[in-house]
């Protein structure tokens, strides 16, 4: 019966493994990526998705704050980062950050997502104060803040270990870490695109240190630039191994590369087939990650909706003000309302579930 659904016979042994809940290999991952049977790959991913989540699809009512774009890393795939003093460089003051939070106190926001660059001069106390001030204004909100790259940078600013730095940030209100800055773990790619940035070992070490402290994190992969399919599979398997060890990853978020306004603007960015396969393959390889998220800001609402039929169970949030992807030419809207998100999910045949950062259902009363 299942073979009726697979146009590519190479997928049948993988189907057998999926059915038996066996772990897939790197070779399986590559076979999936190389198959032209897009619907077959989606079918396999959907088996796993349904097993884990049924038809539920998650979203969150969140707010993004990109506190500064000043960054010492100068990654070639980035349209957001600026050197200090360069045109377009900005840093928000604590007052400005608080004003953004205050402006939306009447909305049922459950998470504030805070990401910036690796700022060369802002003192560690700025970050601690930022978390404290936001928590003072909105004590019940969950702060998902600072990628592993920023945390390693802050530890350096702080002159302290990653563990101590995370502990201090947690005491100030940090709830979890977003998954950014992982890019692709391949040394070859990082040499070419982001040689200054925290490397794969450092990134995984920060994430695992957070897990050991009881902080959950996410993980991302920036794809569709110069990385090979093997390098994508390897990235996912490194994450799977780390998750086996510490278990703190909540979701995996493949990020579609947006070339506009970056040093790589001669590239095209990933195709729709590439987007859907990457999401589906990650659902199949990352058997120990609870959630696969399609970040609609990067994919667009139409592709995010479609991805719910290709292994994805989370479409991220309402957002409202996002700078990083929009500076790279994203044509997507700045925000989707709750009813737009729910309609998008329902039309895909799924049941919308509003979640908090830790994937607990937000009830009407709490919202």
């Amino acid at each position, binding site marked *: 019966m299942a073979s009726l659904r697979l146009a590519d016979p190479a997928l049948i042994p993988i189907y057998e493994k999926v059915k038996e809940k066996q772990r897939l290999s790197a070779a399986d991952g590559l076979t999936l990526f190389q198959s*032209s049977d897009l619907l077959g790959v989606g079918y396999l991913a959907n088996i796993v998705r349904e097993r884990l989540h049924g038809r539920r699809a998650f979203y969150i009512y969140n707010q993004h704050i990109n506190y500064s774009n000043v960054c010492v890393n100068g990654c070639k795939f980035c349209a957001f980062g600026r050197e200090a003093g360069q045109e377009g460089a900005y840093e928000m003051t604590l007052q400005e950050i608080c004003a953004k939070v205050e402006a939306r106190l009447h909305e049922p926001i459950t998470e504030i997502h805070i990401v910036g660059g690796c700022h060369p001069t802002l003192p560690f106390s700025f970050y601690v104060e930022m978390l404290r001030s936001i928590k003072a204004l909105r004590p019940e909100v969950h702060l998902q803040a600072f990628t592993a790259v920023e945390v390693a940078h802050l530890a350096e600013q702080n002159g302290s270990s990653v563990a101590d730095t995370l502990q201090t940030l947690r005491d100030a209100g940090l709830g979890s870490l977003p998954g950014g800055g992982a890019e692709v773990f391949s040394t070859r790619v990082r040499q070419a695109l982001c040689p200054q940035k925290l490397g794969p070992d450092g990134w995984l070490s920060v994430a695992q240190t957070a897990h050991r402290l009881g902080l959950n994190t996410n993980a991302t992969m920036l794809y569709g630039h110069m990385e090979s399919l093997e390098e994508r599979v390897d990235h996912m398997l490194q994450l799977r191994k780390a998750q086996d060890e510490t278990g703190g990853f909540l979701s995996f978020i493949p990020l579609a590369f947006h070339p506009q306004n970056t040093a790589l603007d001669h590239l095209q960015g990933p195709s729709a087939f590439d987007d859907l396969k990457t999401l589906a393959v990650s659902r199949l390889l990352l058997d120990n990650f609870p959630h696969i998220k399609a970040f609609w800001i990067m994919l667009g609402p139409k592709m995010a909706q479609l991805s719910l039929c290709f292994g994805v169970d989370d479409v991220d949030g309402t957002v409202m003000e996002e700078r990083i992807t929009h500076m790279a030419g994203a044509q997507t809207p700045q925000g989707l309302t709750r009813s737009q998100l729910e*309609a*998008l999910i329902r039309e895909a*045949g799924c049941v919308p579930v509003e979640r908090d950062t830790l994937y607990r259902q937000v009830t009407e009363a709490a919202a």
Partner: protein
Amino acid sequence: MAETASLEARLAAGERLNQEEAQGLWDLDLLTLGHGADRARRRLNPTDRVTFVIDRNINYTNICTSGCRFCAYFREPGSPEGFVLEPEALEQKLTELKDHGGTGVLLQGGLNPDLPFAYYEDLVRQIRGSGLGVHGFSPPEIAFMFRRFGLSLQEVLARLIEAGLTSIPGGGAEVLADRVRRQISPRKCNSREWLEVMAAAHESGLKTSATMMFGHLETRAERLEHLFKIRDLQDRTGGFLSFIPWTFQPGATALGGEPLGAVEYLRTLAVSRLVLDNVPHLQVSWVTQGPKIAQVALKFGADDFGSTMLEENVVAATGVGFRLSREEIKTLVRQAGYEPRVRDHRYNLL
């Protein structure tokens, strides 16, 4: 459950679906529908070819008495924003199209009461004179002409063919269910007339396409009603070359509302492929769906990428602004594992 399984078996066997079975398609999940539609596509179009045409949409007038509530393009007669295309401006557009390697024009316009019949004949002659094909005049325009000029439907078609008309676009079909038409386009030809014009065109030797604009007031059952009307006529005449479903874009229209999403578009595309077992080609609508969903649509039954649309005004008037060049279309097709091929409006490969 048993019904779903037997429907899937019928799809696998490639058997013709009746109305009741087609209704059951809506209960299948998206990927099952896509899988069935892809097999149907392979039966009708066994090669990996995906075709497209290099053309432009020339609108000869935006003045229209139809006043359809889904349209953001038209202007009432007397409006200062109304226009009628003059021969000089047309010539410029034709030259530009030929410079881009174009082979034909998609020619459509509003129902403008101030134009004489000779205007339409001259338009066609001028375009043909420049060596380009004319894929022109949707059924509502032809129905408007025979009423307005006291000619028979056959006479209108004969005179346009005499002037050089090469094929007819399938526009103005919207949804061929009169309950819907009475609400969204009460002054436009009804579904029987739309089909009569197409039947007469096929009988006079013209090939045509058919469209469906959905995602407004119609039910899924009414979409099926539309598909079965097309299939029945095609059984009689065989004159439809392609079917082009696309979603209503509510921006700047009287009807308004939220646009349908990508999943419902792909489901409807797949259902179209499965029901219309006698229409050879199915076209993606990148102009309403964008390049990514259009690419994915190639796995949901479509084998044609439409056209480069060097010029497009009607959808653009709703604020939806996707544009694709010939090279971009080729890249999208290749990335999906297919071979892009340029065709003319009659689906001859070039």
